[in-house]
């Protein structure tokens, strides 16, 4: 009999238990946190209306908002950079859509497309400055945090003598592109669910008989779409490998032929894209753009990403994890509201969970790299 080649295991390579193996994944914190949060609110706030159709839609929308910016922040952080200008970019993008679409009276789809082009270019500029000067992205994007916010306040005051521009819903009426951000889908399905008695319907008023939730907002569709695209891009494509490499060790990646600068600039552009999607959905929902929109969003995005298991130092993380981080955020923020807890305690929660997440991530990193 021919001798069958056998893989000889090195006796010094310890077999790691499946348990430990399952633990070494960036999503661990996000998964555990999500379960904990749902168990907690299931026990203490079940009767508050948080888990009926309106309640679910309420925290889903908030989570989806966090998710949209978390996906961008996540890929950028894995590529080794930060963007602190996300919040200002949201305010700026919304304001530009309003100025183009309402003040200048351009068709809404033109206003939206031009805003996207403008914001993505600013993202590219952020990235270009970072890779060219070698300065920490923290500083470069901090500068843009102020520059963009400044313009967001200055422009409407100069043009319209106010800091809020309304009338967007009217301007967007019947616009094909605006509907992609402001509309809902699945109306028929929800009407059917209302008729079948699965979800509640309005009992009185002009909308009597209609379901209380009449469709899934495009915001949620965007969030889920971005999560799927981001996850596939990161884990299943060549470009994803370059993202990990660029953040893991830019020098080593460059020496291996990875176009590190291009990867980083692209990720800054993608982050700006996500911020603009957020802004578009927001102005369509509110019907107005305000100079203070998006405040502190950059930090909320970064915290969601860290809860999701990404390392602040780059090179490691997961889009699914970041999405779960965003979900935890949304559920806790709205859950505390439903449970009647003072909303300022949400910030206490944020700080505590951020600290826990960072400590857990550091621990997981040690397991992976075998450092002590």
């Amino acid at each position, binding site marked *: 009999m021919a001798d069958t080649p056998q*893989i*000889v*295991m*090195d006796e010094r*390579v310890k*077999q*790691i238990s499946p348990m430990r193996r399952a633990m070494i994944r960036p999503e661990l914190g996000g998964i555990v946190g999500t379960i904990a949060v749902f168990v907690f609110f299931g026990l203490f706030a079940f009767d508050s209306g948080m888990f009926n159709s309106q309640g679910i839609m309420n925290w889903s929308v908030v989570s989806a908002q966090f998710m949209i910016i978390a996906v961008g922040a996540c890929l950028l952080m894995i590529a080794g950079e930060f963007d602190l200008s996300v919040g200002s970019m949201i305010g700026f993008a919304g304001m530009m859509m309003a100025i183009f679409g309402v003040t200048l009276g351009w068709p809404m789809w033109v206003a939206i497309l031009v805003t996207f082009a403008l914001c993505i270019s600013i993202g590219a500029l952020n990235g270009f400055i970072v890779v060219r000067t070698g300065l920490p992205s923290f500083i470069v994007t901090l500068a843009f945090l102020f520059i963009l916010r400044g313009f967001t306040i200055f422009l409407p005051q100069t043009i319209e003598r106010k800091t809020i521009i309304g009338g967007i819903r009217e301007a967007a009426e019947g616009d094909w592109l605006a509907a992609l951000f402001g509309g809902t889908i699945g109306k028929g399905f929800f009407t059917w669910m209302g008729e079948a008695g699965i979800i509640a319907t309005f009992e009185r008023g002009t909308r009597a008989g209609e379901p209380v939730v009449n469709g899934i907002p495009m915001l949620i569709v965007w969030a889920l779409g971005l999560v799927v695209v981001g996850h*596939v891009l990161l884990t*299943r*494509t*060549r470009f*994803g*490998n*370059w993202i*990990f*490499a660029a953040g*893991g*060790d830019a020098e*080593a*990646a*460059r*020496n*291996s*032929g*990875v*176009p590190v600068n291009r990867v980083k600039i692209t990720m800054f552009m993608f982050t700006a894209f996500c911020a603009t999607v957020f802004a578009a959905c927001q102005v369509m929902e509110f019907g107005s753009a305000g100079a203070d929109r998006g405040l502190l969003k950059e930090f909320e995005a970064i915290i969601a990403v860290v809860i999701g298991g990404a*390392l602040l130092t780059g*090179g*490691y993380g997961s889009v699914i994890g970041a999405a779960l981080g965003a979900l935890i955020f949304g559920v806790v923020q709205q859950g505390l509201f439903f449970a009647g807890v003072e909303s300022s305690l949400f910030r206490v929660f944020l700080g505590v969970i951020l600290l826990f997440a960072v400590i857990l991530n550091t621990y997981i*990193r040690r397991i*992976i*790299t*075998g*450092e002590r």
Partner: protein
Amino acid sequence: MTQPLIQMKNIEKHFGSVIALAGVSVDIHAGECHCLLGDNGAGKSTFIKTLSGVHKPTRGEILFEGRDMHFADPRDAIAAGIATVHQHLAMIPLMSVSRNFFMGNEPTRKIGPFSFFDHDLANRVTMQEMEKMGIVLRGPDQAVGTLSGGERQTVAIARAVHFGARVLILDEPTSALGVRQTANVLATIDTVRKQGVAVVFITHNVRHAMAVGDRFTVLNRGRTYGTAKRGEITPEELQDMMAGGQELATLESSLGSTV
């Protein structure tokens, strides 16, 4: 005599006021192992970095098969068939062995209009290549950070060899290795040389150089004393040139020639 695959003529490299290379010329031939020797700081790494596209030479020219080459970045050099295993490794500890192995050379598979990283192929090839080099992995998804320095070095060499380079540059590949792994690396150099690849082997260990070298160039403080062929020079002479002659002679007499 055949034309050299690569001619590097009067390469100079200045870092601000530091002159790391003050005019070094070396010819590299296909199917030969060219040893670059020299003490720490002699400029060996800087020299090969001008060849692998990391640094642009301040002055001097690089001819590849007689044609002038200008590498804007490492991608160009890699595309021209020059694979480099840098002294400070081009490996990323947080990434898996297979992701590292294919970094910059990811195999893709098309599904519809999209192309995806072919993880199955990457994992299979990685395991095979590692087995050939005598390294047993827990799995292709094991992080490089869990490997020892020598094992990482071996992964880097296996990667360079696998991608079928015409020129393989190894910057001090043996200095962090144990006895068996060193023998493994030297054997690998011998194998790829016989396949017609030009190998540039940097070391400051004369015994390792003598074991596989066809030509020897000693660098000293950014200069070279020229190139000697195998048989034209003795290990003692090489050792002397590396240390700059006299000092070693005095050292040797006080230590009883054990250096």
